[in-house]
């Protein structure tokens, strides 16, 4: 059972890592802001979500699991809210220096 849980954790965290690497690569390499935003939201939603899932399998108490999912919920909420704000900002093409 522990072995199965450990295997699940490793698989989920690895998959989460993949999304983080991909998200950062997209942020660095994609040519325009809109596609960078697209890359970022993937890393936010899935990368962290998979890591949370993987770690939840290792948590020792129900409180630990609850806090892990609270973190994920908060990040989902804030990225859902800030995505459109960022898109508006990008469309207006605020030029920085």
């Amino acid at each position, binding site marked *: 059972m522990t072995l199965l849980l450990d295997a699940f954790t490793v698989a989920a965290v690895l998959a989460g*890592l993949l999304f983080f690497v991909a998200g950062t690569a997209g942020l*660095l390499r994609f040519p325009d802001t809109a596609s*960078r935003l697209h890359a970022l939201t993937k*890393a936010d939603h899935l990368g962290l979500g998979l*890591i949370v899932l993987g770690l939840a399998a290792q948590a020792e108490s129900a409180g630990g699991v609850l806090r892990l999912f609270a973190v994920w919920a908060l*990040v989902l909420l804030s990225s859902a809210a800030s995505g459109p704000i960022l898109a508006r*900002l990008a469309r207006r093409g*605020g030029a920085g220096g």
Partner: protein
Amino acid sequence: MAEALGAAALLVLATVVAGLARVLRGPGIADRVMAAQLLGTGGIAVLLLLGAATGTPGLTDAALTLALLAAFATVALARGAPGEDGDPPA
């Protein structure tokens, strides 16, 4: 398991630091804010992984605080950006 999670934390940290290049380079304001947001999310992941690797529940609390304040900071950055139609005409 602890070593594997610690290594995962290090890898996420490395991607976060790489993402800093976008905060430094820009060019647009949205790019900088976005990169700062990825920094926040990545930071949360690092803290969670490290907390599980070292068995420190305090790190999960730190991640929770960071998640709250990252949401706050993103809104502040987006609202505070020059040109964001926030002010009444002076």
